[in-house]
């Protein structure tokens, strides 16, 4: 029996077509659009979202065993043993990712329409934003490793261009370059992995790879483990996991909607998606999966501790993103695929919401981002404050919110797998406590307390307008193109921002209801066709243990929030004493575990030193030696024969005549 898959294929291609068309239209008509660019961009993504919904229903209509629809437009390269198609794979995993990406992107576009309104790079911003969404969707919908790598690299570029969006700000361009370089390291890892897999299995196609692999590889086959570790280099560079995580905090130099879109909701989850996508390979090589899980655990604990002390509002959220992605990496590496993807989804909601609220607050502070300066915004900005608290609740895993269900599902699964996997449960719960604490460090410091000067001014209806300056270095800046615009926009005064934040707030609170242990399992049922045949997917913790885990998680979340309340509301100022007492620890955390310095010492300095050796020794002694030697020889010979060149024409003539005369004599003598 053949199944008609054409509607799923059509919707799959439409998902890609709309953002691409939007990006091209906005970019080519940049002189023409003006403020309309924002709505065109938002509309294009909204159409892509509608297509994703269409794909969702189309795929639901198919019988469950044929819910992996492939479609290809043309053969990109076709030769003996090589068959690369421009092909997509529409299956539940891709569709759920596409839904999250397009849905959250649509809301962030809507938010940006108001938030970026006075920026002189308005049209450029939306062209890049649409291009980013297109790239991300190529990555998600790709049906083979080649198209995946194309999307992967496009996303890296879009991220670079958007981080450096304020291109006349030196710190922003430096951050963009850092992100790009680290992402390219990941690209190289991914490419080598693809080549290795191709060399072993002779195909780039996902489904063919998954079919061939079990017959070709033994469990923990050396070549497969090597390929997957290289794949992880790519995944970790994109998903900001140790030790390739340092770019994410610096990426906060980009405009806040960019941070919400790329560095919270979509791009950084690409690594998680990749691991979930290639799960049949990881199940054949548990060693590689365990490596991934341990790195995820390390990242989630490290980032959570750093988030305790950082003072830049956006950087705190960035470190919490790293930490939450650590949870997802742990989840998809130990086999909790549903939980990992579910957490990816809820995280996209509440983290985008947190960034949007942070953007609104930062605008009210006239672009200053230091939370030491902020306090008491609850009266001045009631809407933003409420949604900031909703985001913080979901991040902290407050019982009933979306983050609560998704995070605990991961940890319960880890505990239920037992053995060594207990480490992940324990580490995860410890970090969950820290998460609750630092998320309410933001909440209490920004929303509670005595209103700061800006908040008081705003209560009187006047928004602060400081001198434009770089929030990191304090340098004075312009408001010309290449810098943030002159006006700032807060959610209280711009309905698109309010609408976007409201929808995300609703989702952050209630998305958890999709997947309540023992009651609903919507995400799991939907994802089933992708993960069928996976023993780990079939493994379910019992409902009892799930509720026990949720009890533990809920208590930890409440304890963390209570501790934050103690420290930041009841006994304000106690932090200064703590910093004084644990100066060493604070310095260690504040300097981000010295990872930048470590990479500096391990990679940057040796590279520079090697370059210096090459330039001073290799270049100067050997290369220049050879070059100078050659010219010296030529010149020496020239000196020797120069005497013959007298410039005396008749002497030349004599030589010619004499020479021929000698030749003639010689032949005469020889012939006679």
């Amino acid at each position: 029996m053949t199944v008609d898959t054409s509607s799923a294929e059509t919707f799959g291609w439409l998902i890609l077509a709309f953002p691409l068309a939007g990006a091209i239209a906005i970019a080519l008509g940049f002189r023409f659009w003006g403020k309309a660019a924002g709505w065109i961009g938002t509309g294009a993504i909204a159409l892509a979202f509608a297509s994703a919904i269409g794909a969702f229903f189309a795929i639901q209509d198919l019988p469950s065993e044929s819910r992996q629809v492939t479609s290809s437009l043309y053969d990109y390269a076709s030769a003996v043993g090589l068959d690369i198609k421009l092909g997509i794979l529409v299956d539940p995993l891709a569709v759920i990712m596409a839904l999250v990406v397009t849905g959250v992107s649509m809301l962030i576009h809507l938010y940006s329409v108001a938030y970026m309104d006075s920026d002189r790079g308005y049209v450029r911003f939306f062209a890049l934003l649409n291009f980013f969404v297109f790239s991300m969707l190529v990555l998600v919908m790709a049906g083979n490793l080649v198209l995946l790598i194309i999307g992967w690299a496009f996303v890296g570029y879009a991220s670079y261009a958007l981080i450096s969006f304020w291109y006349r700000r030196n710190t922003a361009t430096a951050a963009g370059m850092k992100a790009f370089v680290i992402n390219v390291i990941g690209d190289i890892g991914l490419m080598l992995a693809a080549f290795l897999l191709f060399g072993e299995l002779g195909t780039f196609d996902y489904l063919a790879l998954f079919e061939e692999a079990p017959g070709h590889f033994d469990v923990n086959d050396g070549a497969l483990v090597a390929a997957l570790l290289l794949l992880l280099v790519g995944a970790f560079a994109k998903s900001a996991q140790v030790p390739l995580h340092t770019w994410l905090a610096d990426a906060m130099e980009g405009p806040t909607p960019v941070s919400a879109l790329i560095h919270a909701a979509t791009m950084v989850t690409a690594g998680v998606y990749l691991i979930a996508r290639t799960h049949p390979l990881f199940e054949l090589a548990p060693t590689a999966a365990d490596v991934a899980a341990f790195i995820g655990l390390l990242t989630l604990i490290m980032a959570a501790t750093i988030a305790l002390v950082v003072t830049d509002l956006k950087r705190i959220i960035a470190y919490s993103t790293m930490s939450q992605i650590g949870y997802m990496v742990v989840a998809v590496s130990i086999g909790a695929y549903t939980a990992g993807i579910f957490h990816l989804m809820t995280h996209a909601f509440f983290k985008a919401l947190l960034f949007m609220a942070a953007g609104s607050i930062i605008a009210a502070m006239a672009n200053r981002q230091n939370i030491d300066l902020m306090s008491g915004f609850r009266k001045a900005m009631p809407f933003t404050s409420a949604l900031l608290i909703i985001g913080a609740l979901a991040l902290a895993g407050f019982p009933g919110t979306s983050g609560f269900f998704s995070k605990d599902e991961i940890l319960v699964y880890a505990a239920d797998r037992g053995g060594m996997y207990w480490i992940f449960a324990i580490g995860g719960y410890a970090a969950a406590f820290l998460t609750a604490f630092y998320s309410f460090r933001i909440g209490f410091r920004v929303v509670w307390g005595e209103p700061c000067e800006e908040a008081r001014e705003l209560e009187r209806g006047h928004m602060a307008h400081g001198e434009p300056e770089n929030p990191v270095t304090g340098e004075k800046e312009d408001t010309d193109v290449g810098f943030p615009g002159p006006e700032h926009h807060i959610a209280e005064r711009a309905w698109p921002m309010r609408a976007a934040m409201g929808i995300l707030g609703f989702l952050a609170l209630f998305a958890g209801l999709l997947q309540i242990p023992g009651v609903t399992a919507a995400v799991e049922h939907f994802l089933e066709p992708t993960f069928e045949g996976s023993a780990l997917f079939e493994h379910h913790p019992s409902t009892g243990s799930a509720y026990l885990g949720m009890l533990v998680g809920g208590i930890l979340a409440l304890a963390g929030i209570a501790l934050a309340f103690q420290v930041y509301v009841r006994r304000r100022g106690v932090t200064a004493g703590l910093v004084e007492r644990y100066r060493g620890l604070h310095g260690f955390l504040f300097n981000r575990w010295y990872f930048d310095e470590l990479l500096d010492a391990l990679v940057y300095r040796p590279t520079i030193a090697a370059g210096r050796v090459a330039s001073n020794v290799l270049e100067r002694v050997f290369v220049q030696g050879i070059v100078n030697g050659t010219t010296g020889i030529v010149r020496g010979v020239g000196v020797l024969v120069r005497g013959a060149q007298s410039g005396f024409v008749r002497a030349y003539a004599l030589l010619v005549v004499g020479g021929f005369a000698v030749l003639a004599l010689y032949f005469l003598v020889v012939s006679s």
Partner: protein
Amino acid sequence: MALEWYLVLSGLLFAVGAAGLLIRRNPLVILLCLELMLNAGNLALLAFARSHGNEEGHVFALIVMVVAACEVVVGLGLIVAMYRRRLPLNVDEMRGLKG
């Protein structure tokens, strides 16, 4: 007439040309001497052609004439250019190629 006479005359003409080439300093005269040498060669070629009874020598002589015509064009052009620029018409003083 025997072939030798032609060759002797040709050799004499060549020697006169070569001597003039080596002795004289005026480029115009040197050019004339060159023509003399070329035509000495032509004479030898034609003499051999007649004595062997075939046409190959004639062909070569024609080619030599073409070459000689080209050479005169270039040579005279150079000399006129030198004259126009008031350069001394003396090959011994033109030593710009000295190494």
